[in-house]
Every structure is written in structure tokens, then in C-alpha cells.
């Protein structure tokens, strides 16, 4: 079932926008003609075609390029146009397959903004990506898939199973300090740095105060969180 209707239902597909990973539009059409073609295929009322095309061109940053042939577009511009086509008709569900693979950093940022705006509008966005950093930036819930099987689903916080840690550079600590600070977490020395793992959230200020109370000088504190990539690798058994 999709949007309360059986998968494939034609009426429901009018509310779905889709950007395939590998696609190409008719190179001999202009960007505006591509958008109008999709308005027609969506059975959108004719009077709304021109405004919908202009709006889509504006949203994806292709203002002024609407009358250029798609064949003259770079891969990134075609991807922007693909996103514009997927957004036609204010869809309730948008499926984006690797939407930023051909975009430069500015383009990626722009797409993330668009995805957040879609979410704020109440639309559901399925983002399929290999860029886990991208998922961290925009996704409320993440499913990790491997070989067609769902390994884990949840919010970012739920998937980042390891508790936060901190890396510290401290001098002047008295001997046996680690016994006095053992309650904060598991300590290891890494050269000039101390690493405390499995620490309860929000205890960094308390830890710094305890070190200072012992006579230590805190020169640097770097709080660390498990990245989604670490969770991903862990789920796949690669770490």
C-alpha cells in the first residue's frame, strides 16, 4: 500500500514524485517543455502548466535556462531538472534516488534545503543515498539496507548505538588519577591524548571540572559522537 492505495494505483501516482538515479530527459526538448510534458502526463489542468514549470525551474535554481535544450545541460543541471520534475504538483511522497550524485557542494546544499522544505510542507521524502553524511543532514529516520535486506531502522539517535565519548589533552594530573575519574567512562591513553568512552550524555562539563579539581590543566576537549558511517560499518560487520 502506498498513500493508502494499492501500489501502482494511477490516481495515487499523481501524488508521487520520483527522481531515478540513472535517467535522461529528451535531449531535444527544452527544460520547460520537459516540465510541461510531465504536467500533461500527470493530467494537471492545462492553465496551470506554465506556472508549475516556472515554479519548478525557480525552486531548483534553473531560472533563465527554461528555454535551453536539455541536451546542452551538464549532468548536474539535468539532475536539478530531474528534481524539478519530481516536485511538480506538490507531491505527498517524493522518492529521490541519489539526488546529489552529480552536484557540486553548493548544489548539494541547495538540494538539502529543498528536502527540508518538503518535510516542513508535510511531504514524505524517501532519500536513497550512499552518502551517509547526507542522510545525517536531512533524514528524520534512516533504514540501512544491505543486499536488499533491512539491517536497521530508526532515528539517527537510535542508530548511533555507542554512547558519546570525548578526547582530552590534559597536563598536571596526579598519579592514580584514573581511579578518581573512572566513574565517567572507560579511559585509554593515546599518545598525548586521553580518550574517555561510554560516557553518559552531557557529562563533559562535569568531567572538566573534576580534572581541574584534581589539579589538572585541560588544554583541549573534543567531544565525539559516533557517525552514521560507524553505525553502518558496525551493522555490516566491517569493523
Amino acid at each position, binding site marked *: 500500500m502506498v498513500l493508502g492505495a494499492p501500489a501502482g494505483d*494511477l*490516481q495515487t*501516482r499523481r501524488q508521487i514524485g520520483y527522481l*531515478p538515479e540513472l*535517467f535522461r530527459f*529528451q535531449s*531535444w526538448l527544452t527544460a520547460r517543455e520537459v516540465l510541461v510534458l510531465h504536467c500533461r*502526463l500527470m493530467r494537471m489542468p492545462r492553465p496551470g502548466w506554465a506556472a508549475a514549470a516556472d515554479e519548478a525551474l525557480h525552486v531548483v535554481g534553473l531560472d533563465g535556462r527554461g528555454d535551453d535544450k536539455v541536451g546542452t545541460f551538464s549532468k548536474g543541471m539535468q539532475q536539478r531538472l*530531474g528534481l524539478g520534475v519530481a516536485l511538480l504538483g506538490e507531491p505527498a511522497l517524493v522518492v529521490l534516488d541519489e539526488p546529489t550524485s552529480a552536484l557540486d557542494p553548493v548544489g548539494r546544499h541547495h538540494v538539502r534545503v529543498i528536502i527540508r522544505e518538503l518535510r516542513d510542507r508535510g511531504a514524505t521524502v524517501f532519500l536513497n543515498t550512499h552518502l551517509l553524511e547526507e542522510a545525517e543532514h536531512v533524514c528524520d529516520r534512516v533504514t540501512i539496507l544491505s543486499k536488499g535486506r533491512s539491517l536497521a531502522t530508526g532515528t539517527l539517535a537510535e542508530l548511533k548505538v555507542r554512547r558519546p565519548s570525548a578526547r582530552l589533552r590534559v597536563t598536571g594530573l596526579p598519579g592514580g588519577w584514573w581511579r578518581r575519574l573512572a566513574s565517567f567512562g572507560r579511559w585509554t591513553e593515546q599518545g598525548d591524548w586521553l580518550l574517555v568512552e561510554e560516557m553518559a550524555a552531557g557529562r563533559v562539563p562535569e568531567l572538566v571540572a573534576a580534572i581541574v579539581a584534581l589539579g589538572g590543566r585541560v588544554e583541549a576537549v573534543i567531544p565525539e559522537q559516533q557517525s552514521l558511517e560507524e553505525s553502518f560499518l558496525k551493522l555490516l560487520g566491517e569493523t
Partner: protein
Amino acid sequence: MSAVLTIASLTMREAVRRRLVAAFAVISIVLVGASGWAFYKLSHGGAFTSGETNLALPQAVVLFMFMFSFVVALSASAVGSLAVSSEIDSGVLQTVVARPVRRSEVLLGKWLGLAGLLGAYTAIVSGLQVAVVYWTSGFVEPDPAAAAALVFAEGVVLLTFVLLLSTRLSALAAGVIGIALFGLAWLAGVGGTLATAFNIHALHTASEVSQYLLPTNGLWQGAIYYLEPSSFVTQQLAASPVGQGDPFLALAAPPWQYLAWTAVWLVLILVLGLVSFDRREL
């Protein structure tokens, strides 16, 4: 239905934008112009008696139409082969079928658009040819509209068949197979006329079967019948004891049963193409 018409108009627009229509227009004008010169020389050159001219003109008309029907078939095969598989390979179709349209509507739209182009091309070139032949020689074919309709049907048969192939095979394979089978069907037809003249039953049967499996040559034979006056056919048969072996001579109009079979064949192949495309993984 609106999706079918949208895809059909898109297909026609592509042919115009990609200058396919312009290329065919230029080639056709050159060919019709050259044929006009040839027909003028044939009827006014003084090399033939009036009786010989009366025999030569229908043959020249059939030869011209034969070349033209080959152009139609070649075009049908080329555009049909590119219509589906190359668009799947490039990813164009993926964006279209994601919309609220059925795959059958997409394929029907392409079929309709390409058949429309073939129809327009056949009508224009046939009309030009009839006019040029009349102006230059005064000769009028018995029923040029029926002949043009059968040449168009021949093109649609090949287009439909190649579209079916294109739902599963690469554009190159579909196009090559279409043209090869078209040539084979014509050759089988020629073999059949010779087999009739020389009473070779096995070859005759094989030829008959081939005309039903791919009815392109059967339709072409029908077109010939409507281009040659009955007096010409009678004269040809009287002049040559094996006149029936001439592949450019048609003794009878295509029977309605054969035309009905062609219509059934078209529907069957089209439905098969729709099912094949519907089940294909994109």
C-alpha cells in the same frame, strides 16, 4: 487516452525536431523529381512506340513504388527499433513510466505516433508521385489510393513487429531482424510466383505460409495490383508464357480474407508487444 495522444504527439515532435521529417522530405523531393524526369523521357523521348510506352509506364510506376515501399519499410524498422529499447537504455522511459500512465499507453502512443508519421509520409509521396506521373506522361494508375493504403499497411506491419522486438532486444538487433525478415518475406513471395509458374508445390506452400507469418509481401502484391491496368496484365500474360512468374505482376486483388488476417495479425503482435513491455524489468 490522453496519455496515448500525449506520447504520440511527443513521438511526432521528436521526428520533426531531430530533422527526420526534413531529411525524408528532401530525399522524397529528389526521388519524385528524378522519377518525373524519367517518366517524361519514357513517354516523350521518342524511343518507344505508343504500345511500348503503354507497357513500360505501369512497370516503371511499380518499380518506383517498390523502391518507395522499401524506404517506408526501412524507415518503419529503423524508427520502431529505436522507440523502446534505446529509450530504456538511455533512461528516458524511466522518467515517463513513473508518471500516472500505463506502460501500454506509452507503447500505444509510440505506435500511434510512428504509424501517423508513416501514414503522412506515404500519403504525401504517393500523392506527389501520382501527380508527377500524370503531368509528365498522362498515365493514371487504376487505384493509387488503394495502392498507397496497402504500402502504408505494409509499413505498419513491419513497425508493429519491430516494436515488439524492441521491447526485448537491443535497437540494433530489432532493426536488423526486422529488415532481414522483410527481405526474406519478399524473396519468399518472388519464389512463390516462380513456383506457381513452374508448378513447384513445396516452394509454393512455403511461400504461402511466409505471406501469413509476416504479411508485408502479401500487402505489396496487393499494391501492385492497384497500380497496373487490367489491359496491361492481360498483355503481359499473353506476351510471356511464364508471365505469372513476374514478381512485379499481380493477377488479383488481395482477398478480403487475407486483409482480415493482416488486421488480426496486427492486433495480435501489438497485444504481444504490450504484454512484453508491461512485464519487462526497467
